[in-house]
């Protein structure tokens, strides 16, 4: 009768939460931008997403096999990495490049550090950075959404090459600065398009509204805290406003900056990756402000039209320092001894 009685440390009950349920929440939230990506970029988008997810899962399985560790696929984190990586890729990217990106994401970005929870950098962003550095041309070739161009590429390679390309709004604003033609006139018409998503760009970043719905879902489910998204968006907005006020001809409307590029995707899904973000609320604010500010620095001052990936990776690197800086003081104050 007694053999079924177990003994362990208190507490003996727990909230019905698991790493898997947290990750499942993120997957549900990512379904919104994923669906929109499928709508705008059609079949090839779904092929890319499926490729990334599958190769991430296989890579993690293989890594565990090689390291002789317990299979860790059931926490769904590889799926999340795959989807986020796919959403941050340009729609015309060939499948083989997506596979390389996924393998690098999981193997170099996560598993070499010891798997989930031990990685320093956001795995999806590691994979994307690798692709950007290795295949710069492919990573900056943007096809227009299918809703604008009905001759969207199907899966075969010729069509990809034939596909009509379109500059992303951010890339456009970048050249606008250089040509001194006044970015403002362009951005006003484009603002609506960037919110809906009818613009060129990475798979998941074009539609601000879908990202916002997904992000709100995560906030409501308390899977993420509002601190990081709020800090990223606010600091980016403030930075862009300052630039806009200084010279409204050279720099685009701050709202346009918010709704275009990877800022929403980054604020809600990438920067909020708990493993690579600070633990405390104060740390989260600092981290988010860092991400937002560096992104805008790169966008406005730097060479690249988009800087979210680099800013997230940079802030990932200083996360341990932020954690050390924002140490919590006990409720009763520091002990006097």
């Amino acid at each position, binding site marked *: *009768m*007694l053999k*079924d*009685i*177990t*003994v*362990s*440390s*208190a*507490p*003996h*009950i*727990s*909230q*019905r*939460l*698991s*790493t898997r*349920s*947290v990750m499942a929440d993120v997957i549900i939230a990512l379904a919104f931008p994923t669906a929109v990506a499928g709508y705008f970029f059609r079949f090839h988008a779904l092929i890319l997403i499926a490729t990334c997810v599958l190769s991430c899962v296989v890579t993690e399985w293989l890594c565990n096999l090689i390291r002789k560790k317990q299979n*860790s696929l059931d*926490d769904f*984190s590889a799926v999340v990495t795959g989807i986020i990586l796919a959403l941050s890729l340009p729609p015309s990217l060939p499948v083989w490049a997506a596979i390389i990106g996924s393998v690098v994401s999981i193997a170099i970005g996560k598993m070499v550090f010891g*798997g*989930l*929870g*031990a990685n320093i950098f956001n795995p999806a962003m590691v994979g994307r950075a690798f692709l950007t550095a290795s295949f710069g041309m492919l990573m900056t070739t943007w096809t227009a959404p299918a809703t604008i161009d009905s001759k969207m590429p199907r899966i075969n390679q010729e069509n990809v090459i034939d596909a009509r390309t379109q500059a992303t709004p951010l890339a456009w604003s970048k050249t606008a600065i250089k040509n001194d033609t006044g970015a403002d006139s362009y951005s006003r018409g484009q603002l609506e398009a960037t919110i809906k998503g009818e613009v060129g760009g990475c798979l998941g970043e074009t539609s601000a509204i879908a990202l916002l719905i997904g992000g709100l879902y995560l906030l409501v489910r308390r899977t993420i*805290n509002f601190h990081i998204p709020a800090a990223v968006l606010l600091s980016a907005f403030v930075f862009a406003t300052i630039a806009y006020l200084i010279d409204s001809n050279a720099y685009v409307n701050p709202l346009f900056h918010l709704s275009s590029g990877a800022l929403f995707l980054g604020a809600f899904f990438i920067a909020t990756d*708990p*493993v690579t*973000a600070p*633990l*405390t*609320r104060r740390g*989260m604010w600092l981290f988010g402000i860092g991400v937002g500010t560096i992104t805008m620095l790169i966008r406005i001052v730097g060479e690249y039209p988009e800087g979210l990936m680099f800013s997230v990776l940079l802030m990932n690197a200083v996360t341990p320092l932020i954690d050390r800086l924002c*140490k*919590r*003081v*006990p*409720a*009763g*104050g*520091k*002990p*006097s*001894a």
Partner: protein
Amino acid sequence: MVVDTKGRRSFRGGVHPPESKHLTRDSQIQPGPDVKEVAVMLSQHTGAVCQPLVRKGNAVMAGQKIGDSDAFVSAPVHSPIDGKVKEVGLRSHAVLGRSQAVIIEAYPHSRPKRMSFNLPDDFNENNYSSEQICDAVRQAGIVGMGGAGFPTRVKIEPNPRLPKHTMIINGCECEPYVTCDYRIMLEWTDQIIAGIRLAQRACGCSHVFIAIEDNKPEAIETMNSALSALNNGHNIKVVPVKTKYPQGGERQLIKAILDKQVPTGGIPPAIGLVVLNIATSAAIAEAIIDRSPLTYRVVTVTGEAIAKPGNYYVPVGTPVQDLIDFCGGVTKKSAKVIIGGPMMGIAIADLTTPITKTTGSITVLTKEQIGKAKYERRQTPCIRCGRCIQACPENLNPTKIAHAVKNNLLDVAERYYISACIECGCCSYVCPANIELTGYIKTGKIFLARQKKKMPA
């Protein structure tokens, strides 16, 4: 001096576990099983262990002192029944492992103690001096009955260096399942208030707040109406507080009611406060008015695996097995037997473990209640989600401390204030990776104590 409640009636952090109090909320306090044998532990409190005053073969009477100590921070123990000392030997103790106990075999004629007594009409706490009350509390072996078991005399005795101005009576009972204090508030209302008045008289506090969580409106009402029958001048007030775990932790309670923070490493007297449990104040009244020591207490026997859950008045020293058998026995569904509630209670494997003065409940949970993850105790890596940090009522960094302990970095654990942890279990409760954060922190505290040679290995 005007001291009033200023807090927002709660504290930062905490969790909301399912209350599960419906199982025993409406069951009246009833006499417990007829015990054949009790094992009275010689250490049922914080402080020095008692020395046995009886030997094998001695006959003892109910209420007779059978263990005492000369130390200031200690409390004597008494026999709850008439009987014969079978042996003085080792028994399982919920907290201390194997520990000294006096085992008493009951005489067949031994009668259970009456549950409550009638307050004399002319009761007036001013008939007793502070010393008289403190002395009687010490002689009756009263300790904090909420869980920590700090000797009550040490708490209420006036200290010229640290004068006490406010007393808080803790009727929160934030631990899920447990209802013993709630039933006492409903059924022994006058006795509690008499105890509070005596304690107030002893420590000289000008203000008394009775804190009750707002999920117990009947208790709040009962206490309020009993207080309004008193003539004014006692300055006793019922304060409803937010229902949140661990609202009944004294540091959290003080923050909620007075918006004051007890310094880390300090105790409430450092800021002029006394916190007493509801059951303790009932015991004080019993000790002084009825002159009977603390030998019985109300225990909630509850949990989904118990056939007949209820609140029982049982002798201290009753084996857990007897109580469970009395309530329908251990069923096949039982997966865990816990002394205390599910958040802070201690799971036991040896059902002969006796209850002590600090045992408020016995909770027997099924596998479903524990949850698959907790039952199998499979931990996944920390994903640094920060839920433990937000849940921690003491504003600590549980994951950092726990992982420091796990990697044997006790100095890091100390730098993150491991000793400030109140072991409430909120962090483990919310952890999605199912890491036993509280368990690691407790382990770390033991390692540190051993390192400092305060505790034998």
